[in-house]
């Protein structure tokens, strides 16, 4: 049985850990509020952008000359998986969930005989994917230095993707991120961004024919890369909010577990202490009786 001193040390160390997890939970809660506000205020832009693109896409009949970013290359041999994860751990299953989804997709595609390539945003996802797909990872984007996520970061990533697409490195690009639903629920999501998939819904144009200035092709040429950046930006913001939410609930759990452990250890400590006192008493009494 552990000595009293050992037990005391163990309790002290669990208490110290509990303080840390508690602090992390509170920091995550504060950051979550900001991240959630940012994610929510970015939604209108992404939605309007999608709607506008949908309107134009619907009015353009696909021809071989149509922009490749819109209609695709016509093949689906090489897939690029753009996996967005966090830079830090200690946030429950947040990173693993996204990676698991990406890995399942990658394995399914490879089973069909397609080539899969990765572009990782965030260190954690890269570390997990590296074990299995070391050679297929084209690039890692590190956002650790970024204090606040800006549109520039997303624009940078989108530019990299477009450059690779134009160089013919892949045919289809899918974006993986975690959609923020609530603090306790984040949904890992896969979204195909090249060529974009439009949900069929009311576009607000009422079937009207738009006038374009200068012309469709040129507008699409500008709109498509921007749409890509917007989608990436949205993914990054949703991810940021999800990460903080996941961390908050993970740390809440950890704090609670630490509390339970302290309670159990304290009971053991008290029992041991009482047992020792009883033992000493018995020794004194039996010593006295022997006289």
């Amino acid at each position, binding site marked *: 049985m552990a000595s009293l001193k050992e037990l005391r040390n163990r309790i002290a160390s669990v208490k110290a850990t509990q303080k840390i997890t508690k602090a992390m939970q509170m920091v995550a809660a504060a950051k979550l509020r900001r991240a959630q506000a940012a994610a929510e205020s970015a939604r*209108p832009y992404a939605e309007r952008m999608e709607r506008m693109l949908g309107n134009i896409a619907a009015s353009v009949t696909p021809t071989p000359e149509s922009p490749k970013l819109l209609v695709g290359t016509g093949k689906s041999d090489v897939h690029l998986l753009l996996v967005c994860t966090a830079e830090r751990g200690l946030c429950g299953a947040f990173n693993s969930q996204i990676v698991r989804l990406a890995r399942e997709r990658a394995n399914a595609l490879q089973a069909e005989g397609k080539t899969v390539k990765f572009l990782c945003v965030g260190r954690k996802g890269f570390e997990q994917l590296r074990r299995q797909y070391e050679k297929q990872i084209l690039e890692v984007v590190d956002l650790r230095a970024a204090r606040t996520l800006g549109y520039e970061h997303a624009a940078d990533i989108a530019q990299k993707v477009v450059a690779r697409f134009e160089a013919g490195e892949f045919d289809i690009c899918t974006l993986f991120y975690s959609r923020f639903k609530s603090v306790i629920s984040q949904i890992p999501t896969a979204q195909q961004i090249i060529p974009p998939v439009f949900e069929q819904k009311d576009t607000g*144009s009422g079937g009207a024919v738009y006038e374009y200035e*200068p012309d469709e092709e040129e507008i699409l040429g*500008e709109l498509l890369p921007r749409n890509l950046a917007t989608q990436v930006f949205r993914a990054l913001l949703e991810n940021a909010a999800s990460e903080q939410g996941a961390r908050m609930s993970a740390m809440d759990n950890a704090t609670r577990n630490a509390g339970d452990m302290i309670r159990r250890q304290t009971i053991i400590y008290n029992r041991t202490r009482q047992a020792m006192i009883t033992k000493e008493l018995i020794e004194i009494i039996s010593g006295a009786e022997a006289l």
Partner: protein
Amino acid sequence: MASFAFELVSPTRLVFSGEVEQVDVPGAEGDFGVLAGHAPFITPLRPGVLTVRNGSETKRLFVKDGFAEVNQKGLTVLAETAVAVEEIERDAFATAIKEAEQAVTEAKDEAARWQAVAAVEQLKAAAAQVGAGGAAAH
């Protein structure tokens, strides 16, 4: 005067949303004014000042990199940069112009060079517009 719905959205927030009477937008091929009942229309933006008129009220906003879309429901402007003229940071402008000028000297072919020159011109014009607007506001 008849009014219509106008929305100005930037990637980070919904900058403006509401009923207005007239909006003057700096389109890539020239400025255009939108009134209620404008024909469906889509165009990219040029860096410049967007003016919102509602009765006697006018609001001037600087917009850069984006698109304007007019449909039956109204006008939607998507802009990567959208700030009220009064809140613009002059220094940011100076750096943007410097960067654009840098692009001119680095351009590889004639077409790229012309594009870069045009960008510089547009930025300078916008800066002049904003500068005048800023002076009037004080």
